[in-house]
């Protein structure tokens, strides 16, 4: 790609039809993908990555790294290598056209399915399918969730996810009061204006 913009240079390459592979972990402590539900009734969305020695600590570290500001009602994490990613399209064709049907499997388990609706945006949770492999999960997702052009699909086995338990829903009760964590709350512009007026 001919661009000097690092945001463009870092974009992943577009994929080949039929290839579904595990998302590559970063070359560090061990990386875990973080999904946040910003409001009751809204879908979980991919928020970023934390480094951690294990899944439980990843959950704990993700909570403050990604939900210490703004609004949040729930959070979950999954090890990066357990996120299966479809090929990425360039937007001229639908990712579901690149998904091939695997041979049918016997043992079915729940998988969570995520869509990337726009290049450079976050993956958003769209629902669950029962499947025997990530490939099969995506093939079933094509039948269930294929309504508009999607750039990329992720499939994650539900059993691999560290969810927020019902008792833990109270983690974010006091969050809406913590305005002091937002830069805007410092009203730096107002303070500067007042200071400059005093100097006159």
């Amino acid at each position, binding site marked *: 790609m001919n661009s000097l913009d690092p945001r463009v240079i870092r974009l992943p390459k577009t994929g080949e039809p039929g290839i579904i592979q595990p998302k590559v972990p970063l070359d560090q402590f061990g990386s875990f993908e973080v999904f946040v539900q910003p409001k009751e009734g809204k879908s979980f969305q991919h928020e970023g990555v934390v480094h951690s020695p294990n899944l439980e*600590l990843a959950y*704990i570290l993700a909570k*403050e*790294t990604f939900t210490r500001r703004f609004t949040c009602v729930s959070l979950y994490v999954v090890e990066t290598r357990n996120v299966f990613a479809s090929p990425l399209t360039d937007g001229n064709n639908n990712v579901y056209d690149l998904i091939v049907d695997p041979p049918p499997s016997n043992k079915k388990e729940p998988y969570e399915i995520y869509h990337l609706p726009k290049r450079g945006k976050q993956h958003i949770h769209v629902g669950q399918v029962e499947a025997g492999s990530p490939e099969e999960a995506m093939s079933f997702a094509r039948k269930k969730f294929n309504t508009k052009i999607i750039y990329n699909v992720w499939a994650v086995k539900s059993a691999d996810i560290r969810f927020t338990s019902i008792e833990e829903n109270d*983690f974010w009760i006091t969050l809406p009061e913590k305005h002091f964590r937002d830069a805007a709350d410092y009203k730096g512009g107002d303070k500067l204006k007042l200071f400059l007026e005093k100097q006159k």
Partner: protein
Amino acid sequence: MNDLALKELLYKMADDLLILGHRNSEWTGMGPLLEEDIAFSSMAQDKVGQSLALYTMLHQLGEQTPDTVAFTRNANQFHNCVLVELPNQEYDFSLVRHFLFDTADSLRWNILTKSSYEPLAQLAGKIKGELRYHTLHANTWVKQLGSATEESISRLQKSINIVMPYALGIFEESPYETHIIDKGIFEGEKVLMEKWQAKVTEVISQTQLHLPDWKILTPVLGGRKGKHSEHLQPMLEEMSEVFRIDPTAEW
């Protein structure tokens, strides 16, 4: 209602939270991992916030404003236990202190959800999610590092041995203990200590760490009566530096 008894309880809780909140905030920018730095700093901020809620309650009972009591008292007017004022050492020390203090703190607030003093019961309900996170954080790290490598186990063990006599000082009894219990405000330090020992034992038993024999330890007492280590006064001076230069400063 004996106001003195209630105020004594509120002051010692508020002072514990303010002082430990400040000590833990000293890790900001220096934590062992970026993510842990953020988590530990956030919890420190939660503690200062909880102390503000208690100082506000005290203000409504006729005490001076939160900023005044937080920033203008001398060390001998603080009621925090000595544990919370000890200077930070290696991260294992802060982690062990965080585990031992927060286990007690979360059990204390859990008892207070049933307090006959309504504002305290309400606050206990409001902050229960913060406390749940703080103890989950502490327990998970202790379980992880307490069974990981020879170095991590021996570091935590050394810190447990150093910190434990100070941790027992959390439960130094108030002169109003019977009154507080009889009025249904709080079940008292003795009950709290028993619950704490059971919880600490439960977590430590899932690791390769061991606890010292409670019976042969001498608790470090005096903090609740204003008798502190030499470390508190310098910390207070640093903490209140901006307030003393300009009491109206806002940021």
